[in-house]
Every structure is written in structure tokens, then in C-alpha cells.
């Protein structure tokens, strides 16, 4: 999914700048040739692969977008991971474990894709746990009730899928391939969320109330996941020209709302927007103005969970340091022993 910068706070990732540096400065003949080839690839809808020449800004945009997407998956494990130990049935517990585990996998696929652009995962982790990197604001909301597991699946994953399906055709090959795998795996995420809500809506009064209250909280933030309205989203144009992004924020948001309304009817939940109604002329659902001030507040770090999320990720990473070191030390010792044994064997042959 896209991760949006608060106005005037575009962070410069050190590594992205560093890797981009190789192709800055005065353009050489090689650069010009490379650029022509790059534009030809983009034009013909072909894929750009890691070793191809690419403009520094394209590389930088990709590293930022893919790593932020990866961070979002990893941080996104927390709001749902919070309920694994309290899941109300064993089937739901298994599904939730598998889902949160998938998110780790998705983060991992994406870090791998970003790593092909020259920024290694350890560096990206460091940026995340030191609070330098951005991730999707949606994960700075809290999950106070079980129904939030349903809303996250139905609304948040639903919005993410809307965003991600076109990314399967992103011009950068490794990103597109990672997204293909992710989209296939995510198809169950949205369905399980929908079914959680459906069970609640078919349940007791208290359960129905829980579901509606949760949808009330998640509906607008999910719509905001597509990013600011097109006229306030200047970076989108370049991303679309490079065919990283295929549809505008507003187009995707509209597509999402059109999908949601009939689904909400099946669930029997009310979408919290009095202005929501079908427009015969356009064939789409019109919906009310979103409160972007809240979006920007969360983006600025004033959400319910911004600091907690990063701190928790940091703790996991730091608590695991001795394990990672041990495994590395063991590998080094084994390699050294194997080398010594090979050397000894050679000497015996020589003698």
C-alpha cells in the first residue's frame, strides 16, 4: 500500500540517497543510452529488472515505497497479533496466527525486493526501529475489540488489495513479483475478516453492536489509506508516469467504495457516512467528505499507537540480537573448521 508523507516532511533515507548517488552528476553517454532504454521499457510496458540502468529518482522512489510497504506489513502484525492469545475460538486462533504470520512473510518478500535495489534489510530494519522510516498510518490505530479483527480484514486488507492488485503490474520486476505472491496469499485475509464480521452480525446483540462500532471506527481510516485527494498528491503523477502506480488515489478510493456498499448490505452493517448514495448518472456511489485533519494528525505521529508500535518492534529486534549473533558465530566457526579440515586433507595429499 502507499505510505504518505505529511506535507513538508519527506524523509531522505540515507541508503537510498547513497545508492542513487552512482547515477547523479553530469550525464554520461552511457546514462543517456540507459535512459533511452529505460524509457523504452516503460513505454512498451516491459519490466525493469535490478541490473538495468534506471534514473536515480526512480530507484529512490522504489526503495522508499517498497521498504515502507515492507515496514507496514511488519508493524501491521501488531494490532492483530494483540488478539492471538485471546481469539474466541480455536479456529479463529489458528486463522489469526496464520494471517499474522503471512504478514511477516509479506514483509520479508518486500524487503527482498527492495534489497535488489541496493539497500540491505539490516539497514531498512535500522531505519524502522529508530523511527526514521514511515509505514502506513492505519497501523497506528488501536484494536480494542475482537470485531477489529474483522474490520481490519474486511476494510483495511480490502483497501490494501485494491491498492496492491495494480501493483502486481508495477514496472519494477521484483516489486511486481513480490506483489503477485502477496495478493494470492492476501485473498484469504479479506475473506476471513468479512466472515468474522458476518458471524458477529449473525450473533447476539452484543456481538452485532461490537461489529457496528468497529466498522464505525475503521471505515474512514480505510478510505484514507488510498492517500490524499489527487489534487493534493503531487508525487502520484511521477509514479504513474513510471508505471509504478497505475491508478490515481481517487480512482482507487471510488472503486473501493463501490465494492464495499453491496458487501456492507450482505453483512447488515451501516457504513458511517450519511452522504453515501448511488449516483445514477455516474454509476458510482457518491460519498461524503473525509476528515483529513485526523489523517494528518496520525501521520505526524499523534495517533494512538505511533510510539508504541516502533518501540515494540525495536524490543523484538533487540531481544533477538543475541540469537542472531549466536547463529552467525556458529556459522563462522563451522566454516572455519571446514576450511581447516580441507587444508589438513590437502597437506596429507601433498605429503
Amino acid at each position: 500500500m502507499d505510505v504518505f508523507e505529511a506535507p513538508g516532511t519527506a524523509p531522505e533515507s540515507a541508503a537510498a540517497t547513497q545508492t542513487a548517488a552512482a547515477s547523479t552528476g553530469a550525464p554520461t553517454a552511457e546514462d543517456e543510452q540507459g535512459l533511452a532504454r529505460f524509457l523504452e521499457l516503460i513505454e512498451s510496458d516491459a519490466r525493469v529488472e535490478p541490473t538495468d540502468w534506471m534514473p536515480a529518482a526512480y530507484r529512490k522512489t522504489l526503495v522508499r515505497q517498497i521498504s515502507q510497504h515492507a515496514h507496514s506489513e511488519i508493524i501491521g502484525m501488531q494490532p492483530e497479533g494483540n488478539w492471538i492469545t485471546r481469539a474466541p475460538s480455536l479456529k479463529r486462533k489458528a486463522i489469526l496466527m496464520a494471517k499474522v504470520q503471512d504478514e511477516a512473510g509479506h514483509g520479508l518478500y518486500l524487503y527482498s525486493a527492495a534489497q535488489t535495489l541496493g539497500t540491505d534489510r539490516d539497514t531498512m530494519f535500522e531505519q524502522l526501529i529508530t523511527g526514521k522510516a514511515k509505514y502506513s498510518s492505519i497501523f497506528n490505530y488501536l484494536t480494542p475489540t475482537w470485531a477489529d479483527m474483522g474490520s481490519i480484514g474486511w476494510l483495511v486488507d480490502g483497501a490494501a488489495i485494491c491498492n496492491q492488485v495494480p501493483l502486481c503490474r508495477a514496472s519494477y520486476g521484483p516489486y511486481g513479483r513480490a506483489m503477485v505472491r502477496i495478493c494470492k496469499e492476501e485473498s484469504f485475509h479479506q475473506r476471513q475478516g468479512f466472515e468474522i464480521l458476518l458471524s458477529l452480525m449473525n450473533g447476539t446483540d452484543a456481538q452485532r453492536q461490537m461489529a457496528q462500532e468497529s466498522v464505525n471506527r475503521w471505515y474512514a481510516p480505510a478510505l484514507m489509506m488510498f492517500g490524499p485527494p489527487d489534487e493534493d498528491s503531487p508525487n502520484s503523477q511521477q509514479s504513474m508516469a513510471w508505471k509504478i502506480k497505475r491508478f490515481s488515489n481517487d480512482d482507487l478510493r471510488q472503486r473501493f467504495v463501490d465494492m464495499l456498499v453491496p458487501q456492507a448490505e450482505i453483512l447488515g452493517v451501516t457504513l458511517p457516512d450519511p452522504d453515501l448514495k448511488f449516483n445514477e448518472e455516474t454509476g458510482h456511489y457518491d460519498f461524503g467528505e473525509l476528515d483529513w485533519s485526523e489523517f494528518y494528525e496520525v501521520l505526524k505521529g499523534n495517533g494512538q499507537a505511533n510510539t508504541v508500535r516502533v518501540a515494540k518492534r525495536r524490543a523484538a529486534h533487540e531481544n533477538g540480537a543475541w540469537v542472531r549473533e549466536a547463529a552467525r558465530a556458529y556459522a563462522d566457526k563451522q566454516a572455519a573448521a571446514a576450511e581447516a579440515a580441507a587444508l589438513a586433507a590437502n597437506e596429507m595429499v601433498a605429503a
Partner: protein
Amino acid sequence: MSVKQRQAPTGIVTPELIEAEIEGGLVATEAVAQYALGLGDDALILAHRLGEWIANGPELEEDIALGNIGLDILGHARSLLTYAGSAWGKTEDDLAYFRSEPEFRCRQLFEQPIGDFGQTIARQLIASVYFDSLYRALMHSSDKTLAAIAAKATKEVDYHLDHSTQWLLRLGLGTDESAFRMQRGLDAMWPFVDELYRAEPVASGDFGAELAEGLEGIAVDPRALRAEFDAVVPQLVRDAGLTVPQTSAVRGGGRQGIHSEAFGPLLAEMQVLARQHPGASW
């Protein structure tokens, strides 16, 4: 890219399959149900603990590995509890969420907190060796459902044992700190080994002689599995440059409903939501 998603081959036992068979008339006898309940509780509580690792692992790859192991074991728990419940007209969820502490039958090893990664690996090692020998024997049970559950579990546990063995070696022979932590983990978990290999109370008659009689050829006597533990684990520990702990054994009593201090809070957390909505379905 070919990411094929295939259905599990038919014949693999799942909780849903057992549920369908129960609807078709399958009922466990009281003795078998009590036995399955004990094994199911062991698996349930261990899986719950492993679930605590998700999003907290030492590395993303390990998060996923522990998740897979937890899901395998949760699968065993669900099958066993579903089957056990058939004797009393109860579902897996009735048993997991609506029993109180003394009604649980899990052995105390599984209740212990996850601790650090060293402690978790220590428990996984002990548990995997135990499950490995248990399920391999249970595959030959004359009870077809238990045999089928064991047949699936034994293959999965084989991998769990490998996972914990690999980490035992790496932590034991990695750095000074990791050797210290791995040793501390083993020392913490070792007192709970004995209880695993004590007779099932049903077999020793604690629940009444009629249960023991009903289990011949069906249940596995854990006492017969101890020799394998003693043959395998101390050697693995020494191979990892560590010391076989010389700790005394806890009194235990999990199968009789006597649980360790860590269990109450675990249960409170696990059951809180389900108990707020009795009779609800999710």
C-alpha cells in the same frame, strides 16, 4: 511465477473432518475421551505459548518458523479436543474456553512462560522428543481416530525436533552469551521432564479402574517412552557443549488438574473474550 495453492490431499485428518465424522455418529468412549483430553490440553497450551512469539521472534524468518510449529501443534490440539468432546457432546471450544483451571489436564511443562528464545528452544526440544516418540507409538493405536491424528502429527513433529536441535547447537556453540542463555533455559525446563513420562492417570487408575481397562491397545504408556528421551536428549545437550541439568523434578500433577503458577493468567487471557459472550459463535 507459479504459486500453486492446492487443497490438502484427502485423508489427512483435520478437526473439520473429525467433526464431520462425529456428526456421522463417531463417539469416543469415556476412557478414550479422557485420554485424548489430556493430550489435547498439552498441545493446546503449548500452541498458545508459541502464539505469543508471533511478531516477537528474533528474526522474521524465525517468526515464521515458530508460527508454523505453533499452527501444527494447534492443529493437533483441535483434532484431539474435538474427538474428546464427542463423548460429552462438547465442541473443541466448549473444552478450551469453558473449563476452569482444575479441569484442565495439561502437564506443567507446557504451561511455563516462553521466557527468552533459549528457554523456548529448551522446551521445544523436550516437547518434540516427547511428542515424537508418543505419536510414533500412537500411530499404531487400535483407535482409528487417534491413530490418524498421530500419523499426521508424527511427520510434523519430526520437523519440530529438527528445528529445536538445530537451534540447540547454534545457541550452545554460538557465543558465550547464547551458551549461558541456552543452559539457563534447559535448567529452567528440566524439572518438568519427569512429569511428561509419568503414567497417564487413566492407566494408573487415578480416574478409576474402568478407564484403564478401556485403554488397552489404544493409549501409549508414557513410561515406556522415557528410555528414548534418556538416550537422545542428554547426548544432544552434550553435543551442544552444554551440561545435562541435575535438577530435581517438580511434583507436577497436571493430569490431575494441579497446575503451575503461570497457568491461571494464561487461562484468564485465553478465555476472557469467549467467557464474556457465553453461547456466542464466532
